[in-house]
């Protein structure tokens, strides 16, 4: 570890902190239907979209209608993307003449992008046409980010409203999120990325004649350079915590992430909306202190994750290449397998921590080649439910589930009915929260167990033997259910069984977890508000933040510790003893 590495973390944190209030306040304005400075341009577009889509923008929905619209829209757009993939060879904007995508891969990819996972079982630059990337996948980058945000906002409304049967209009929330937040931000951001070197064109791939031609008598050595409309995808990929790369190497690819500064921007754009949403929460519920307490709890977990990951990546094992590990002023010591020189150890560890704290899943280094403990950090981050800022929207509503559980636990301690911002937390609310918390480990652990026990189906895809093999499978299903999308990418997941079952893993991890959240929102909205009493546990204090961190860690640790101890922990102990596989 170097002082510079920690300084990069500190500067990143300060810049993030500075964005929280302006971003959060702006989002609150947009989602409460207030006017913004973009109105003169965007209001007419907004009205036009309502008209063309048949949206009755003045009608609000109860939670069932809200959930129904969300599911209907997701199903339609999923099917649309599936069809585009299956037919891409007959459609335009396919200069490389790529073939139609097979049914299991097309299903997996459509499910993956619909659920904000953006797991990729394929090498994009040799699989997906430009049309598929733009109309099939970029659209879902926008949709899934939007859906995450609107569900979080619906939940905030549920907390805030009293004796109300409705929690908002899904179509209005979605349209306003797209038009006022995501699209303008992406246009500016994508242009900035182009300025730094991210390509944006529709040409066929470039064939370059290499500088070094060892034998002039032979045909010239060439390199075919994949490009395309990369920047437009990259912007929403990061800002929407999607994470599906235009290239297989994702943000490690110099065309997706060309400079240390683009790396900084990409990391910032992962957290900027989720962090801002904590302020939106405080503002919309009229309790800014609560928003900051949630922010603080998230920040503590973020710092802890980075510290462990950075330490582990800076301390490789003697069994591998101990002698070559000594650092110098111009070459940092540590594990550089799968990492890019321009990011180094610190920039790669920080990115890995952020991308899995959130449900982003973009990677700028190969997690599979991380040290066992360094690679356990991304895995554990996802297992905690991606509530450390988290995915856009999904991070906040995930954390609010933990908030409900925290006030419930605090209520048990003092023997009173728990309250949360004036709402009594009762049986139904706790049941929905527990449902949310149980679906996640259930789907991950049962699918992992099934695949680990199937040599022909599960184990044959492994890239690495020993305990790391278990980690590869565990990471895949955790990443899927958590809608993260990063991978221990050595695992060959492009097989029928992995494609199909990961598709379900992602859909269950997304929608079966969203429904309890909306049910909770609907139930909270119809409750009356009770004034705070001396017995009320305040949710805007440092004590609350500590309790929240404790709840997240205890729930996550109790659930997943056995699996982690057989994977990364065991691998670490054996590797320390010099054991290779």
């Amino acid at each position, binding site marked *: 570890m170097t002082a510079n590495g920690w300084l*990069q973390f500190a500067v990143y944190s300060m810049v993030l902190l500075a964005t929280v209030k302006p971003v959060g306040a702006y989002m609150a304005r947009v989602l409460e239907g207030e006017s913004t400075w973009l109105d003169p341009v965007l209001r007419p577009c907004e009205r036009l979209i309502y008209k*063309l889509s*048949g*949206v*009755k923008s003045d*009608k*609000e*929905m109860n939670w069932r209608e809200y959930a129904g619209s969300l599911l*209907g829209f997701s199903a339609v757009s999923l099917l*649309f993307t599936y069809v585009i993939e299956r037919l891409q060879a007959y459609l335009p904007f396919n200069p490389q003449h790529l073939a139609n995508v097979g049914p299991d891969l097309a299903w997996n990819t459509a499910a993956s992008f619909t659920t904000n996972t953006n797991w990729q079982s394929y*090498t994009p630059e040799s699989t997906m046409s430009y049309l598929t990337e733009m*109309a099939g996948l970029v*659209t879902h980058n*926008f*949709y899934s980010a939007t859906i995450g945000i609107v569900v979080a906002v619906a939940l905030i*409304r549920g907390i805030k*409203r009293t*004796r*109300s049967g*409705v929690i908002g*209009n899904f*179509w209005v929330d979605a349209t306003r999120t*797209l038009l006022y937040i995501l699209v303008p931000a992406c*246009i500016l951001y*994508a*242009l900035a990325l*182009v*300025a730094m070197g991210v*390509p944006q*064109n529709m040409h066929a791939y470039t064939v*370059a004649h290499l*500088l*070094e031609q060892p034998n002039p008598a032979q045909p010239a*050595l060439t*390199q075919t350079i994949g*490009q395309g409309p990369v920047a437009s995808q990259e912007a929403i990929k990061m800002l929407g915590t999607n994470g599906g790369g235009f290239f297989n*190497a994702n943000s*490690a690819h*110099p065309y997706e992430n060309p400079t*240390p500064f683009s790396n900084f921007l990409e990391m910032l754009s992962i957290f900027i909306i989720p962090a801002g949403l904590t302020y939106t929460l405080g503002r919309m519920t009229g309790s800014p202190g609560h928003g900051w307490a949630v922010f603080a709890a998230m920040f503590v977990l973020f710092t802890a994750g980075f510290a462990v990951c950075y330490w582990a990546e800076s301390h490789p094992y003697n069994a*591998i290449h101990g002698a*070559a590990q000594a650092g*110098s002023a*111009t*070459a940092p010591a540590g*594990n*550089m*397998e799968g990492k*890019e020189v*321009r990011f180094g150890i610190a920039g790669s560890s920080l990115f890995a921590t952020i991308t899995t704290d959130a449900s982003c899943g973009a*990677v700028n280094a190969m997690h*599979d*080649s991380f040290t*066992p403990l360094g690679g356990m950090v991304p895995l554990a981050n996802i297992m905690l439910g991606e509530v450390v800022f988290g995915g856009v929207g999904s991070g906040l509503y995930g954390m609010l589930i933990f908030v409900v559980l925290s006030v419930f636990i605090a209520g048990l301690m003092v023997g009173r009915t728990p309250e949360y911002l004036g709402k009594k937390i009762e049986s139904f609310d706790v049941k929905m929260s527990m449902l949310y918390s149980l679906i996640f480990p259930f789907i991950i652990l049962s699918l992992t167990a099934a695949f680990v026990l199937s040599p022909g189906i599960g184990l044959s895809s492994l*890239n*690495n033997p020993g305990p790391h093999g278990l980690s590869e499978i565990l990471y895949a299903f955790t990443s899927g259910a958590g809608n993260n999308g990063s991978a221990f990418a*050595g695992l060959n997941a492009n097989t029928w069984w992995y494609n199909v079952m990961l598709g379900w893993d992602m859909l269950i991890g997304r929608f079966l977890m969203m429904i309890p959240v909306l049910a909770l929102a609907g139930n909270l909205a*119809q409750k009356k508000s009770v004034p705070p009493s001396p017995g009320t546990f305040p949710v805007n204090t440092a004590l609350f933040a500590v309790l929240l961190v404790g709840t997240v860690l205890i729930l996550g640790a109790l659930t997943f510790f056995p699996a982690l101890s057989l994977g990364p922990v065991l*691998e670490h102990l054996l590797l320390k003893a010099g054991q290779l*596989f």
Partner: protein
Amino acid sequence: MHSTAVMNPAQKTQAEASGDVSAGHSVWGTSIRFTIVTVLLLGLGYPFLLTGLAELVFPHRANGSLVVRNGRVIGSELIAQSFTSDRYFHPRPSAAGNGYDATSSGGSNLAQSNAKLAQRIQADIDKLQQQNPGKSVPIDMVTTSGSGLDPDITPDNAYYQASRVARARGLSENAVRVLIARHIEDRTLGLLGEPRVNVLELNLDLDNLSK
């Protein structure tokens, strides 16, 4: 389900405006129409608008930062290409396709506990140390990058290769070291990332120095 809205007047929400619970949308109809409208907007309008803007403002970058020499594209300054002769600086080893395949980017994905990784790295180190006894090998020389297309090497790596390149070209080692020093790109703002040397740009300059 619906109860009359009794709301704090300070709370301005859309619920106030709406007395009716049923939004009256057809889920499928609205979903299909909304999908069509937004696909046109986000799936075609947005990327094509950006392509136009990028082409206008940053044409070199938008087209992949290609390097043209004698009217011919010889590569991209952002993408590593293969160099094997002693006359050139070598990029990091590549796990992209069969090496430096810019249509199949990616890393080795070998675990730290995988004996294959340890053997590969040790074999590379042994080879380098035979050629340059006593010099410690910079780690980026023997590890594959995440993309397999890492255009950069560390300054240590470049200096390590200086004597070989100088010998092969009949240059003084000092001249080559001066060239390397000119090509070191420091951390952005002295803070972000790591110091690095772009291999293709260094090699192009090397050709300017001696054909």
